[in-house]
């Protein structure tokens, strides 16, 4: 009993502020312990939220109202919510306490003891209230005279510095946030996420006359070809159609100009147009194929029966 007597001499001095400080800091210390030892991963995200709330209360106690309001917004609203998103997104199983935690206890215990030992260099032994060596010394008092002359709010004092003299810090912090945002997006962007991109080479191979636009007149010249006012009749329909083809948007098709007489000899104009629109690159084949084959291909393709020829036949 005599050894425990100094501990029982501890009496509560110092009024309401100390009581609020103790009430606020105790759950925070317990939560700091429980973060690691919680079985449910959601619980181990909720415990730091408790720490953040208690820190905000402590900041109010210090009189820093702005920091007390900003700190939950940043810490709880951004950081803890992000952690909760990740915990919910990945089905982290409820884990048992790992049996191998004692494996790391020697090294981490030594590091912890070093920190604990360093703590006693900084703290004065006499001002820690719960140790049995506590004596009746006065606490540090500091009279803030500036507050008696004209009192600024916390926001005003911060703004007085942060936007004028240290504005570079402010802008650099915005750059840090920009880098974080871009980094998070770039890191997690997946090819299978719905980002519509265009493969230019594939598009060019499929439909080159729409992909590559020649600069020399993109539209069909607006001329009347077939009306009777322009000199058209049912007799010279094929000549007029040939003139139309050579001036239309299909005029640069490879092979159209060379073979157009041959085509017009045995194909109807609408068949020529059909062939131009469906096989835009195959005019060089006209020198190889016979007319009956071309007509058969067009008819079969228009009836959706056409199959591409097997390799090895030609």
């Amino acid at each position, binding site marked *: 009993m005599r050894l425990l007597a100094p501990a029982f001499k501890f009496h509560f001095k110092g009024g309401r502020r100390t009581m609020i400080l103790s009430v606020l800091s105790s759950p925070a210390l317990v939560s700091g312990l429980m973060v690691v030892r919680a079985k449910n991963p959601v619980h181990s995200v909720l415990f*730091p939220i408790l*720490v953040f709330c208690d820190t905000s209360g402590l900041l109010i106690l210090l009189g820093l109202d702005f920091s007390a309001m*900003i700190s939950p917004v940043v*810490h709880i609203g951004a950081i803890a919510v*992000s952690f909760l998103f990740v915990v919910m997104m*990945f089905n982290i199983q409820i884990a048992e306490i790992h049996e191998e935690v004692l494996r790391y206890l020697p090294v981490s215990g030594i590091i912890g003891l070093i920190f604990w030992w360093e703590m006693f260099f900084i703290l004065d032994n006499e001002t820690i209230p719960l140790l049995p060596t506590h004596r009746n010394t006065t*606490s540090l008092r500091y009279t803030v005279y500036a507050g008696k002359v004209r009192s600024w709010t916390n926001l005003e004092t911060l703004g*007085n510095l942060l936007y004028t003299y240290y504005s570079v*810090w402010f802008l650099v912090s915005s750059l840090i946030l920009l880098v974080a945002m871009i980094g998070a997006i770039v890191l997690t962007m997946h090819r299978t996420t719905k980002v519509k991109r265009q493969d230019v080479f594939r598009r060019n191979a499929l439909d080159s006359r729409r992909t590559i636009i020649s600069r020399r007149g993109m539209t069909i010249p607006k001329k009347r070809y077939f009306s009777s006012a322009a000199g058209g009749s049912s007799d010279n329909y094929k000549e007029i159609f040939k003139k139309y083809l050579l001036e239309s948007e299909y005029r640069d098709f490879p092979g159209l100009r060379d073979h157009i007489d041959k085509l017009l000899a045995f194909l109807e104009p609408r068949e020529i147009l059909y062939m131009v629109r469906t096989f835009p690159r195959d005019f060089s084949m006209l020198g190889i194929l016979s007319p009956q084959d071309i007509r058969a291909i067009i008819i079969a393709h228009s009836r959706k029966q056409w199959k591409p020829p097997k390799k090895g036949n030609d």
Partner: protein
Amino acid sequence: MFSETDPIKYFTFSMIISILGIRGILLNRRNILIMSMPIESMLLAVNLNFLVFSVSLDDMMGQSFASLVPTVAAAESAIGLAIFVITFRVRGTIAVESINCIQG
């Protein structure tokens, strides 16, 4: 401001939170998500430290810097979580034992 409580109490609180954060990192080998939460707790403790001494020493430098520390904390947690997400996507597990397989 400090007529009743002294800054030593706030400072011990902040230091204990910081040490508990270090302990959380060291003693936790379950998964890397739980390992990165005490880091945020440590950053909060350091922030509180800055603010306590700024009030105690009547100096605005502490508060100016303490408004930038949560910025860095949020940025670092965002990128850390992004790395965690792609690690989980690639490996399918979040065990920490074989985390050195992603080297190179």
